[in-house]
Structure formats: C-alpha cells, structure tokens
C-alpha cells in the first residue's frame, strides 16, 4: 500500500513522542518504525526527546537490572514441589471421609453385641405390638407410636450408656490405646448405635403410617423428643460420670414416667398423660430438642480430644 503525498506530509509533521520507547526497545513494527525514522530525520524536537528517552533507557538498564539483586534461594524449587505434592482440598476431604469410614467400620466391630441385640429385640417387640394391637379401634397407628415412645428412648438411652465405659468395654480400651482421638471414637460409636436405633424406630413408624394411613410426622413426634432427650442425657452421664450411673438414672426416669401415666397397665390409649414434670418433658418440642442438643454437645466435649499421655 502506498501513501498519498498528503498522508506522507501528515506523517512527517506528526510527532512520534509516544512511540519512542517502543522505537528504542525494538518492539515497534516495521511500518511504524520507518515512519518514526522519517519523522526523526527532520524533527529536532523529537530528536531531543529521543535523546532523553535514550538516557532514561540506558540508566534504567543500569539501575534496574535484575543482576542488582541477589539470586533467590536454591532451595526454592523444593518448596514448589512440596506445594504441588500436597493434597488438594477435594483430596483432603476424600481422605477425611475415608478415615471416618474406616473408624466407623472398626468401631462397629468393637461395639458389644448386646447393644445390637437389645435394639433389634425392642424393634421386634414394637412391631409385634403393632400386629397384636392392630385390631383395636386405634386405626391411625398412634398406639404403636406411643409404645415406641416408651420402648425406644429406654433402649437407646441404655445402649448409649454402654458405648463409652472402659470398665465394661475391652474394645474401647483397645480403641483408646490407639492415636485416634477418644472424642472421635465416641462420635463414631454414637453415630453407629444411635443411628441404628433411630433407623429401626423410624422404619417401624413408617410401616405403621403406611399400613394405617396415619401421619408419619405426627407419629414420629410421639417418640422423637423423648428418644433424643433420654439418649443424650444417658450419654452425657456415661461420659461425665460413669456407665452405671447413666444406666441407673435413665432407667429410673423411665420407670417414673411409666408410673406417672394413666392406664399404664392396660397398654391402652396412652393418650392422656398426667401433668407431672416428666410428662412435660416426654414429648417433642423445640425446648426438648434444644436440651437434647445441649446434653449431646456436653457429652462430646467431655470426652478428651486427644489421647491422654501415659505417665
């Protein structure tokens, strides 16, 4: 492409100040470079500016040269490899899940078999109750849920009293002799035993709700609060005091509640509790759930986080 005389004249009169740094460092493309050269040939002002830029460039190369600082440490790359080889966040998460799974599996083998047996028998008992009482007039399943609200809290509470008692549990002693945090061991066992009891109780309620057409939420609310409260109380006493104290207090509370109920010997409607203090807490409401959560946290934080040092 050739320039017209007018364009050439304009190029020759236009100053090239902005292009001079690029002209000096050799990054100006060929066309612009020859255009700048043509202009500099007859423009004294731009030549003077070029002289200042040249002085500035020379001084910059001298004063700002990388060789003016010491070289970085030779061990720097070792730090780079260490960071590249460190597990990423998803890998750390996966590792945590895998370790938690391994802990739960190992604890499942160490939990006394009597705990699993008691939970299973309680469930069978409630289910039998459902079958035997099914012909009664209570067709919405409330009688079975009421039975569950008596049986499930007691059984779960007693089970949890025995998951953290070294005096009765050789398996726990083995677990606590490992570097695994006692709190994590407790959490794993709590998850297993409470989860098992909760799953069985929920399953029975679900079957009852499906067969009778009753509301699952309404039925579950009959036993959920008492189950959580007695379980967390028992666990907190077990960790904080002793297994036997936890078991005895859980049993006593249950007996007191049982005898505060009307028609207890008839195993009938169970629908009209007296106004005793126990009957006030033997239900599902936000206060009971918060109390249960507080006791659970107390139990977990009472368990040592680290393995006690052997003296």
């Amino acid at each position, binding site marked *: 492409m050739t320039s017209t005389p007018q364009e050439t004249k304009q*190029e020759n*009169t*236009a*100053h*090239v*100040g*902005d*292009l001079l*740094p*690029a002209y*000096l*460092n*050799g*990054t*100006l*493309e*060929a*066309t*612009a*470079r020859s*255009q*700048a050269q043509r*202009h500099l040939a007859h423009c004294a002002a731009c030549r*003077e*500016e070029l*002289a*200042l*830029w040249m*002085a*500035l*460039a*020379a*001084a*910059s*190369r*001298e*004063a*700002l*040269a*990388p*060789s*003016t*600082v*010491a*070289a*970085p*440490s030779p061990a*720097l*790359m070792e*730090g*780079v*490899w260490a*960071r*590249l080889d460190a597990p990423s966040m998803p890998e750390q998460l996966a590792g945590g899940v895998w370790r938690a799974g391994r802990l739960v599996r190992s604890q499942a083998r160490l939990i006394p078999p009597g705990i699993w047996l008691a939970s299973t028998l309680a469930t069978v008992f409630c289910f039998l109750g459902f079958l035997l009482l099914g012909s009664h007039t209570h067709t919405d399943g409330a009688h079975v849920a009421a039975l569950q609200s008596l049986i499930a809290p007691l059984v779960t509470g007693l089970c949890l009293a025995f998951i953290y008692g070294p005096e009765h549990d050789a398996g726990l002693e083995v677990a606590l002799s490992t570097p695994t945090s006692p709190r994590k061991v407790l959490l794993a066992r709590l998850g297993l035993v409470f989860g098992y009891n909760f799953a069985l109780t929920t399953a029975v309620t679900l079957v009852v709700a499906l067969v009778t057409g009753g509301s699952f939420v309404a039925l579950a609310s009959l036993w959920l609060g008492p189950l959580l409260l007695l379980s967390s109380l028992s666990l907190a006493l077990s960790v904080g005091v002793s297994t036997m104290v936890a078991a005895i207090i859980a049993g006593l509370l249950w007996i007191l509640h049982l005898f505060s109920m009307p028609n207890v010997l008839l195993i009938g409607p169970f629908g009209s509790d007296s106004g005793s203090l126990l009957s006030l807490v033997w239900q599902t409401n936000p206060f009971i759930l918060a109390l249960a959560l507080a006791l659970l946290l107390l139990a977990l934080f009472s368990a040592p986080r680290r393995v006690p040092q052997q003296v």
Partner: protein
Amino acid sequence: MAVVGVRGIGRAVDPPDEGDALLIRRIAHGDRQALTDLYLRHRQALFHYLLQFTSDDGVAEELLQDTLVAVWKNARSYKGDARVLAWLFGIARRRACKRLRRRELPQADLAELETVPAEDPEPEAALLASVTRAEIAAALAQLAPQHREALLLAFVHELSYAEIAAVLEVPLGTVKSRLNHAKRSLRAVLRAGEEAEQ
C-alpha cells in the same frame, strides 16, 4: 502536540522465544524438569520484579513459589500471543497483588507530580549535557514505583506496549502515559538537582 496514531505497536521484530514456549508446552504435559529449567532461566528477572512489590526477600521468594505453582497449573492456558517472560510477569504480578492484598503498586506521590511542568521550557539536549548517568540513576531511585515498573518492563525486559498492558492489566494508553509520567518526573528530579547545585 500531535502524535502518530497507536497503530504498529505490536511485537513484530522478535518472535516469541521458542525455547521458553517449548518449556511451557513440556510443563503443560507434566514435565517437572521443564519447570525447573524455566525457573533457572528467569529466576533472577522474576525475583527482581517481585521485589518491586515487597522489600522482604522471604516474601518475594514465597511470591516466586506462588508464581511457579500457578505456572505449573496454568501452563495449558498459555496461548503464545506474548513472550513467555511477559506471561510470567503477569502471573507474578497477580500473585503479588493477591498475596499482598492490593491492586496496584503505590501511586505516584502527588507532591512529586505537582513539580512536573506541563511544558518543558529547557531543551532536552541542554539538560542532558549537564548531568551524568549516575545522576540519572539516582533520579530513577526517586521515581514512583509505578513509573519505575513501567521503565523496567519497557527498557530492561524490552516488552512491547501490548505486553506491558497485559502484565499491568491496564489499557494501552495507560502504559504510554505511565512512561511519559516517568520521563517527566525524571526531568523534574534532574532539574531540581541542577537548581540545588546552583
């Protein structure tokens, strides 16, 4: 004053460094030796550049490690549009700004800018004839870090305007104005020194 348009500022003289580009391709394929080689080639330039952001050698070394980790992870994103060194400076700058929780190098001192005359009453040749290179070097040390950074990239590492704009993440016009500010500031510092001597 009228200036020639902004066309023709791309790098056409030097093709991208083939050796560096090859190293980046090898890094993208997981070649650790290539990252070590790249480090050995540019460690001094990168370390020196990072020291523009911090005066602490230890922090600069950590930033250099950040940069190399980012290079390892992002080697596939290198398109070859700019020289590898410019790409490395861009990464180093972003790591430095992120780690040091700031977006930019410190702004030019306002008082300093006020001393810069809009028009130059004295011819450059007369001014330059009266100062030594050492005096210019001393004047450089007084420039705002932003201006020194522009001079460093343009004259020491010889990046094109487009490459400097990519490193600094600013428009092309800002690159030119920073270089011009640097020149004017330098002129003001030199003139102030000259007057002090008289």
